[in-house]
């Protein structure tokens, strides 16, 4: 898909700036539906976890952490399950819509981490964490960003697969078996949640660092003054 660029002439000053259409509508829609779903699924998931906050035996029960009720959604186990079993469909639905759109539109090239991105990872790490020089931007996402977003998408898929293994360990016994059985599937589901939360944290830090134009682009699709020249 060709990237759309537009030149904007300021009606008062006559100054010309550029904007690029970075995020197609479906991507923006799925992004925000996903953000809401993740919030609800994490909150209600932790509510469910509170009922048995352990990954060991029931007898004797050794609790891992006591998650405070104030940071959980649903009020009690039954309520948490209602939220979880409702929003999982919204989460899966927006995930499938996103993946389908990306694949069929070809827009996946914007975000998919590919082998040719590997050499660009280290310069970006050096820039972000060790005050190295900033590598020139070539596209909407730099190699490190592509790595982060591709990982997040993989984690999203895994969160669904581990969830299905917990919800349906008999009908999808092969899936539960691949994860080491129901017991381990529950552990992976929990670990993947924290990995997603780690991504979200890093994502939010970068959103703050990259400023207003970048933030607005996830609402309108258009990014003003892009750092790169799309071909």
């Amino acid at each position, binding site marked *: 898909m060709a990237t759309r660029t537009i030149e904007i002439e300021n009606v*008062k000053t006559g100054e010309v700036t550029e904007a690029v259409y970075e995020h197609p509508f479906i991507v923006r829609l799925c992004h925000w539906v996903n953000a809401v779903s993740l919030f609800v699924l994490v909150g209600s998931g932790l509510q469910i976890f509170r009922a048995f906050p352990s990954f060991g035996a029931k007898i004797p029960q050794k609790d891992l952490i006591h998650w405070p009720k104030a940071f959980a959604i649903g009020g009690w186990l039954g309520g948490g399950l209602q939220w979880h079993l*409702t929003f999982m469909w919204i989460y899966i639905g927006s995930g499938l819509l996103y993946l389908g759109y990306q694949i069929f539109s070809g827009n996946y090239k914007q975000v998919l981490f590919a082998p040719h991105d590997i050499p660009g990872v280290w310069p970006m790490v050096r820039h972000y964490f060790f005050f190295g020089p900033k590598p020139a931007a070539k596209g909407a996402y730099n190699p490190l960003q592509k790595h982060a977003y591709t990982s997040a998408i993989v984690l999203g898929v895994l969160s669904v697969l581990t969830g299905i293994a917990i919800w349906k360990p*008999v009908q999808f016994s092969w899936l539960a078996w691949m994860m080491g059985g129901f017991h381990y599937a529950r552990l992976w589901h929990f670990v993947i949640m924290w990995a997603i939360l780690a991504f979200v944290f890093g994502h939010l830090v970068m959103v703050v660092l990259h400023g207003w134009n970048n933030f607005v682009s996830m609402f309108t699709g258009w990014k003003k003054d892009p750092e790169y020249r799309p071909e």
Partner: protein
Amino acid sequence: MSSQTDSRRFRSISRRELLKLTPVVALGAFAVPKVQQKLLKTGLGFSDWASARLFRSGHLAPTFADSELTPFSKFPINDYDVDDPQVDLDQWNLAVGGAVQKPGNYTLAQIQSLPKITQNTRHVCIEGWDVIGKFGGTRLSDFLKMIGADTAARFLTVECADDYYESLDMATALHPQTLLCYEMYGRPLTREHGAPLRLNIPTKIGYKQAKYLTDLKVTNVLQKLGYWEDQGYSEFYGL
């Protein structure tokens, strides 16, 4: 591909793109107390509908070797009221009613006269823990044949000595691993585990597997779903 515009037109283009996202605001309905319960009930209902579609009557739950069993002493005892509802085991029988040809009271000996099945299966609690237990009993489907149940009926309901109650869809009731269970770990059920008769359903979550059974009914209409279901748990909860 490049085009030109002025800042005023660009603002209106941006606004139009922003407005396309209004469907996301619809999710805000979940924050409105009045509709929230309705929406969640719909979501849970959809999950139950999907669960019933995913259930395959010929698909067996995984079974395990004796070496993989959770020791009997570590098999949790879960009940909503008391561990031992003081069932008089000598006088006990199962009251059968509803859409059956031979209603009446059935003794444990009558139930035990049917072929005995023993299975090592996983018991999953809604709280999140799971154990592997050894269960012995008769197939519920065999018993339904014995009482001449109308298997075209939609549900089966049970009542318990401790006022617990449950309902079961007919497809699950007829599943070959669904047992009227009178033995655990090769011994008659202890009082805490539901003596003298309980349900063992490896394709269902724990709370559907009622203990201390006293009544069994075949029906097309459910007055109530189950002790926990009536408080908001899933009705089908098949594993």
